[in-house]
């Protein structure tokens, strides 16, 4: 068995052995293994893709959510502002109304007081006038009792007319 001389026995067994090995592995091992690897690669790729898709979806959802949040916030702010405005308006109105009413009441009161006062004054005037007339009547009656005095009076009146 030289180093460079192939022996018949080894060639024989090698051919048979390698052929058997090849057929066993080609039938039962390699397809299963390579298909297994390919299937797993595909699954991983699919899952990655799906994950990317889900991520994208999540992002868009997030965006939408944020948008909705922002919108809701804006709406809330708007509502609050409106409510404040309305309440302020109501307050102002109420205040104005109250002021106006009180003013009116005061006015009424003033008028009433005025009327009462005027009435009282008129009454007093009338009373005074009546008194005056009574007094004047009495006086005139007394004065016109003698003629000298009547003349003097006429003269005096005339003087007054003159100065007017």
């Amino acid at each position, binding site marked *: *068995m*030289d*180093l*460079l*001389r*192939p*022996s*018949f*026995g*080894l*060639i*024989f*067994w*090698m*051919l048979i*052995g*390698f052929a*058997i*090995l*090849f057929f*066993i*592995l*080609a039938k*039962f*091992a*390699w*397809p*299963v*293994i*390579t*298909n*297994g*690897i390919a*299937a*797993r690669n595909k*699954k991983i790729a699919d899952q990655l893709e799906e994950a990317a898709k889900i991520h994208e979806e999540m992002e868009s959802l997030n965006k939408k959510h944020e948008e909705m949040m922002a919108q809701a916030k804006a709406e809330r702010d708007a509502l609050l502002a409106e409510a404040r405005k309305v309440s302020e308006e109501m307050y102002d109105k109420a205040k104005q109304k109250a002021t106006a009413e009180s003013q009116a009441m005061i006015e009424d009161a003033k008028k009433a007081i005025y009327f009462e006062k005027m009435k009282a004054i008129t009454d007093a005037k009338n009373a005074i006038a009546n008194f005056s007339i009574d007094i004047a009547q009495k006086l005139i009656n007394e004065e016109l009792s003698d003629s000298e005095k009547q003349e003097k009076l006429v003269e005096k009146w005339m003087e007054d007319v003159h100065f007017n």
Partner: protein
Amino acid sequence: MSYKGFERKLAVVLCTLMLVFPCKFTLAAAEETEKFDAGPFIIEHVIDSYGWHICGDGDKSVSIPLPIILFDEGHPVVFMSSKLHHGEAAYNGYAMGWGDNKGRIVKLDGNYADYTGHLEEGQEYEAHVCKWDISITKNVCALFISLILITCIFLSVAKRYKEHPNEVPSGLQALVEPVIVFLQDEVITPSLGRNSNKYAPYLLTLFFFIFLNNMLGIIPIFPGGANLTGNIAVTGILALITFFVTTFSSGKEYWKDIFNTPGVPWWLKIPLPIMPLVETIGIFTKPFVLMVRLFANITAGHIITLAFVSLIFIFGQMSPAIGWAVSPVSLFFYIFMGLMELLVAFIQAFVFTLLSAMYIGMAIGEEEHEEQAAVVEA
């Protein structure tokens, strides 16, 4: 005990052995009267044999006897190699060859045709070689062991894929999967393109067969140690299979390129068909080179490691002191070569597979033209 502690203790033990063992062996070598001859010692360890030698020398040697199977003139003959007593005895007229027939089984002629017993030294025997010898030799035995090993490994891996699809690889699966994926992505697909699936089983089988046997060849004790991929018959068969696969999968373009090589001046083809001749020779040199490369690389690695071991004995016979001094250096180089061989084991398996894939891809020759067509269309 932690792994680290164990590692350290193991290193200490191994280093001690490295210093003690050579001492013992150099002393033994010095005592031996017969002069140590490194050449035959190395060749004996590299070539095939009828028994599997385990340890010891001469009469004290321990080896596993293997069956010898012969077809002598149409009759099957089977007996154990131990009957021949390492070539010192004949059994039913069969003996180990000598001279030109050294290492082969011969049938004694004449008076000794059915002789069983000790062969006298110095006596002339007439003999002829038994041609049809399909003995289970050391290499055949190693071949069977490796076949069983590979089958078990890959069937168990395949089972794991079948039973646990789409799961994280574990155990053996995790060990072989990266290699398979590497071969598919770096060797098979680039060379064969869309024909990958058709040839992948052959190329994967080829790679793992060569790689595992290279690795087993590095292990110095049974069940490793047989120089199977360093045997020219084994590499020859592998190259031959690649040759047949290449030839039978060849397309029209392959032959056209050989007989009417494009891109060379006409006067290289007519009147003297130099290029066709060169190309035709190339068909055969490719597998031949495959055969020789694997054989030479693996055998050379073994020869060098054995040479470093032999150095201890050579120097030991000069003087035990020198032998003792040389042995650590020798062992260092031995270990270094062993590590080199680990690398070579992978590289050679890879190269053989890669070149096979490339030859087959070139023979099919579809991919290139499709690519060209694609370029033209673009």
